[in-house]
């Protein structure tokens, strides 16, 4: 069936079964491959996107549930917080294999947008749903603290 979505500020129409997870519509239909597949069961966070500003595991969100809501993927993360995270991620040289990193950043973007100065405990709580097999966690933590500082300095 034809479903109308708003992805990264653009209205798109996709022909998909209503139960299809958002992840596969993004990747297979819209070719937005920055959102990654890791587990298909909301256990690893590689597929994290924003739906109406909330971090959502797109591998388990039926596409029907995204209709009428604003979907943002890594390709559309253009907020000041998103830019601060990119800058911090580059400064800390966070990624190794890189597969999980877009999901990490999408989770971190919600955290930093909600908490101007996230504590280590905030980071633990918000980021423990995102697995990194390369275990870049030390740098993810540093980059989040640093991005929060950048975002504040930049006058959000």
């Amino acid at each position, binding site marked *: 069936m034809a479903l109308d979505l708003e992805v990264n500020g653009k209205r798109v129409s996709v022909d998909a079964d209503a139960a299809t997870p958002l992840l596969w519509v993004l990747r297979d239909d819209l070719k937005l491959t920055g959102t990654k597949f890791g587990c298909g069961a909301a256990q*690893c966070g590689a597929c994290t996107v924003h739906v109406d500003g909330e971090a959502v595991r797109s591998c388990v969100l039926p596409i029907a549930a995204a209709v009428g809501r604003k979907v943002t993927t890594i390709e559309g993360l253009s907020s000041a917080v998103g830019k601060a995270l990119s800058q911090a991620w580059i400064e800390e040289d966070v990624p190794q294999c890189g597969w999980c990193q877009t999901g990490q950043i999408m989770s971190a973007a919600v955290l930093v947008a909600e908490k101007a100065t996230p504590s280590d405990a905030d980071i633990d709580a918000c980021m423990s749903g995102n697995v990194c097999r*390369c*275990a870049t966690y030390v740098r993810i933590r540093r980059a989040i603290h640093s991005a929060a500082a950048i975002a504040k300095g930049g006058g959000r």
Partner: protein
Amino acid sequence: MSGRTLERRDLLRASAAVGGGLLVAFWFPASAEANSLALPKDFVPNAFVRIAPDGAVTVIINKAEMGQGVCTSLSMLVAEELDADWRRVGFEFAPVDPVYAHPGFGIQMTGGSTSIGGMFEPLRKAGAAARAMLVQAAAKRWNVDASECRTEKSTVTHTASGHSATYGELADAAAELEAPKDAPLKDPKDFRLIGRSTKRLDTVAKIAGTATFGLDVSVPGMLTAVVAHPPVFGGKAKRVDSAAALRVAGVVKVVEVPSGVAVVARGFWAAKLGRDALEIEWDDGANAGLSSEKLRADYAALSRTKGLTARHDGDPDGAFAAAKQVLEADYELPYLAHCPMEPLNCVVDLRTDSCEIWAGTQFQTVDHAAACAVAGLKPEQVKLHTTFLGGGFGRRANPASDYIVEAVAIAKQTGAPIKLVWTRTDDLRGGYYRPMWHSRIRAALAANGALAGWAHTIVGQSFIVGTPFEPFIIHDGIDGTSVEGSADTPYAIPAVHVDLHTTQVGVPTLWWRSVGHSHTAFVVETFLDEVAHALGEDALALRRRLLAKEPRHLAVLERAAGAAQWGTPLPAGRARGLAVHGSFNSFVATVLEVSLEHGRPRVHKAWTAIDCGRIVNPDGIVAQLEGAVGFGLTAALYSEITLRDGCVEQSNFHDYPMLRINEMPDVEVILVGSHEPSSGVGEPGVPPVAPALCNALFALTKKRIRRLPIRREDLTA
């Protein structure tokens, strides 16, 4: 991958002699290539570097980038000798060609933590040759002596005449020159880039989501394939009812391949639903009865018998007969999945007389040959593009090329390009695990307090038998990867016996980050702690004594222990553990500080010191060592693949958990500089982690942990 590389490669293919399925190593000198191509815009002095008229320097990476940072560190080697402006340096992955073969193994591959060590000279030479040609082109243009020219930041300068030209401006002229036979290399004291922390070249693409991994590849008309694999290794489909699967919207076809039953559909989700709807009766075959519990018992029994001798020093029998005290212990380690974050996948565009493949692979030559065989095509008809790898850890270096073979086999029956996608469950249940191991180990303590004898019996599978690596690695029946880290133990013990039972079990196994060291270091380093405890000696003091003639082990040991303030008091409920281990020609010592929280280990901090010879990219090494701590802790705390009735029990991250950010300790990495040749970095950080953890836990609980992953009952009195 740019079209240009492929064109050059096609040129090679067409011109190089082809025989016996192997391409003859051959590379056109730049001038010949220039004459052969209509518009030679770029300067291509050799197979590893290309300079465009706009000054862009492209380094051709003949290794898999799976997180270890080779696209940056290998580019640094070329750029150093080239005196390239680092801001203009980029990279692309090499096509499959003998010129890109591993200097030691003779095939194009990434493994054994050998990328920097193996390519240190060849890539510097490639950069130096290119530089020499650019200088020569400039000297010719200015009519000056080349020896009076100097280079810096992609510019040739002749101070006396005031001339200067960028590499881009010189590219065309340099392309007309013959490559020098042996351009001189820099004295290491003149390095400007090697040894300096350099930002990764792939970070920006990876965080923007634009880096292309195998799973991100898309070709026009492509369909997605998901495969139902037999639930038991070696099983076969006896009867397949695909009617329901074919009724799923988007499902195009169901095809049987040797490895299972594939559902081919428009997109992953339809393919997955189609697979769910398949009705298959399996013939489980010979492995239907496999069970971890049975294997554990079998291995334990075998460890009581004599295996093939891997090392025999002195008189171990005499040492044990004369011992005042004999310590003995059994260690058990499970099958482990590599579990790269990007599940296995492969894109195949198979035509009548050609085939293009895109895959994240560590094993280009092997995968290419396997694809040719399945496709029934000649080597020059098959192009394999290496993408970024969303993790490898050895899984994507498979002598059986399992996911490549499967994808080509499906494509053969499909009539359209296909993308094979494995789910996480397929990955965890797909075999090729780190083998399960049993160790029986004994130590003879003499009356004078000396560690007089040591005997270690190892039981487990070989993943080398039957592969082309056999002649390199198996000697006198001993698979070197089974006993490495034990048979070559550096501890000064007068009598040592190490023997091996190589088992045959129907579970496919493979190298897993740090290979044999992943089990031997755990056994040796925790058992040595038992020896220290029995002797009433400090763990560091005992190692110092037994490693007195091993300066590189000692140096990392001292640095890690020093940084961790080994021996100083800790708050109640905290303890430290220590381990040191050499692997892949590097040396790592790790100290962990731990406590128990809610009955589970909590690692607060790790100090890890590495001597990996000459350092190329310091921050890259730090990153690998940080990651190795997390990787090692995951295995020690959580990882185990178990079998019941022939089936793997684990299916996703809920039962094959990974360490999470809230469990990750702070890590302090200490780089111990040395002038030895550059050696491994990706793997050597892993082996000391589990023993350091268990040694620390013993200090807390007085209970020895001899089986991984750690069980809650191992921590309570």
